């Protein structure tokens, strides 16, 4: 997995970003205390990301992933709208809420938007070039 050659401060962060009408991108980091808890197996290695609609707090997707993965792609509710994510970890058989994300607005799918000429991408296709 590609990474930047840069050590980031150990701080609790969960960010949810819109990608397209079908997908959110989420990434997370932990404070050193929480990281230690994972390393010492106080938390189970799999964390659970729950994505819910901000409007009614209803969870529409749960996704389990290794705590160190640091990022995941998550689905968007069918009609779009504002969503949030929460990251849970399992300790002694109980799910513990560790990180809360920002609110992200999911795009609503538009008709006929895939067949348009797209900015400079059109000129980036094929061949070697500069700029």
């Amino acid at each position, binding site marked *: *997995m*590609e*990474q*930047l*050659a*840069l050590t*980031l*401060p150990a*701080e609790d*962060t969960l*960010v*949810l*970003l*819109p*990608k*397209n*009408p079908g997908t959110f*991108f989420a*990434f997370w*980091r932990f404070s050193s205390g929480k990281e230690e808890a994972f390393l010492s197996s106080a938390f189970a290695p799999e964390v659970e990301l729950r994505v819910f609609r901000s409007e009614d707090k209803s969870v529409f997707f749960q996704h389990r992933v290794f705590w160190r993965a*640091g*990022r995941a792609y998550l689905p968007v509710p069918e009609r*779009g709208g504002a969503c949030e994510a929460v990251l849970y970890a399992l300790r002694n058989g109980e799910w513990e809420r560790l990180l809360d994300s*920002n609110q*992200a*607005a*999911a*795009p*609503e799918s*538009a*008709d*006929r*938007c*895939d067949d*348009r*000429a*797209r*900015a*400079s*991408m*059109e*000129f*980036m*296709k094929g*061949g*070697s*070039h*500069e*700029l």
Partner: protein
Amino acid sequence: MSSRGSLVLVLHAHLPFVNHPQDSAFLEENWFFEAVVETYVPLISCLERLAAEGIRPGVTISVSPTLGAMLENEALEKKLALYVESRLELIEKELERLQGDPVMQRTASYYRDLYESAAEMLHKYSGDLITPLKALQHAGQIEIITTSATHAVLPLLARPEAVRAQLSVAAEDYLDRFNRKAPGFWLPECAYDPRLSSYLKLSGYNYTFTETHAIAGRGDRNPNGVYSPYRTTSGLGLFARDSESSREVWSSQSGYPGDPAYREFYRDLGYDGDYEYVRPYLGADGNRRPLGLKYHRITGSGSDLSSKLPYDPEAALARAAEHASDFLARRLRQADEVYSSRGIRPLIVSCYDAELFGHWWFEGPAFLEAVIRKIRQERLPLQFVTPSEYLNSCQEPEEVTPAISSWGEKGYFDPWVNESNDYIYPAVYAATDKMIETANRFRNQDLNSLAQRALNQAGRETLLSQSSDWPFLLYIGSHADYARGRVSDHAANALKLLSEVAERNVDERLLSELEKKNNIFPRLDFRVFASVSRF
């Protein structure tokens, strides 16, 4: 003659901030030099020529703050002069080398004119191309707008403080550069989300542009489609891009730039020339790369590079004039169709990256000049207007809630968030979050000059880490190491400076180096990142 439709033509001029004063030559600085010679000088020449002839261009130009800073950067101006001089030297050699080949020699001669024009304009304005743009705006010939401070894709900035910083730094930068308030705002990558309307309005902008499907892609909610301006609940004016006129110019397959007569972009003397002959012009590493001297035409969409035919500048310019006529004929037809179907005299909003004209599509500036000139000379019932003029003269626009969208591939944010580049975001957010936290902590404190400087520089580094250019370059696999290095360096610089301020241990030598290298936004105050209770 009454107009059957109005045209808003927006050219978005942007390059990422690339400034390496410690190196006598730096590969990525060539992006700027190429764009100046091939795009900015030809466009400014075209606008000045039209204005001198009494033909008001009426186009809208978005000058990104990063590009504006480079256009005013003295170190880059000196390197640019050397670049032009070096190309002119090579062209002289080419004219001699091509003596037995009059067709190719004619093209070399055309390049001599191009580079000499650049040298003349740079000399005339002492290397600062903001001056003629400012003069054109002052004379009412064009309207200049801005974009976010470092061209961040704003919907991907989850923190309101970060969005506010991008918008207000850009507003201040515009005021400093153009001595007036920015009338409008170009959303980087046309990327819109609902938060932006109020942020933009509160930052003093009157209007912005969205992608077509922000307005028109969701059925019949907006009966005028993209052919009228709108306003949001915050009172922000909105113009939606017309995809029909965009496709004719943007598409490399079906659009004008793919015409067989036009210059082939990918075949270049840097690859074709004898290695020892071109070596002095390739750069320190000696790798073959484009030199901007291209002698072949597109010839045909299926033809490979080796089978391209010689370029004929005169034939290509004649084709550009034909395409200009075709473009205008299509706009008239489009205006009539809209009038028949919707009962309105349409406003057609055509938005393009400025660098398409000249750099990618070599004949693009000639096409634009012909479009503007023909409306006047042929007395066509179309008019170019600026967004401010249109908003001032039209009826109160209808209110809309635009959809989340961008003009990128697939219409949303995929080019900037995908598996080729998503790993940069933890670093960008680490710098951004620490910047906000530190700004909140120190906003009301009396700081010594060194701490203040360090915090301001951390703000510059944070903004630079957020540029859309880095994930985009990673996505297309072009200059990926450079893009990765830039995100990493800016985030690391911001975090280091913020940590040093917190520990009251600022390394003044490093700070001075960063201030010299990343010397954008000289008036930036770190407090622009502080949270506000209500925005």
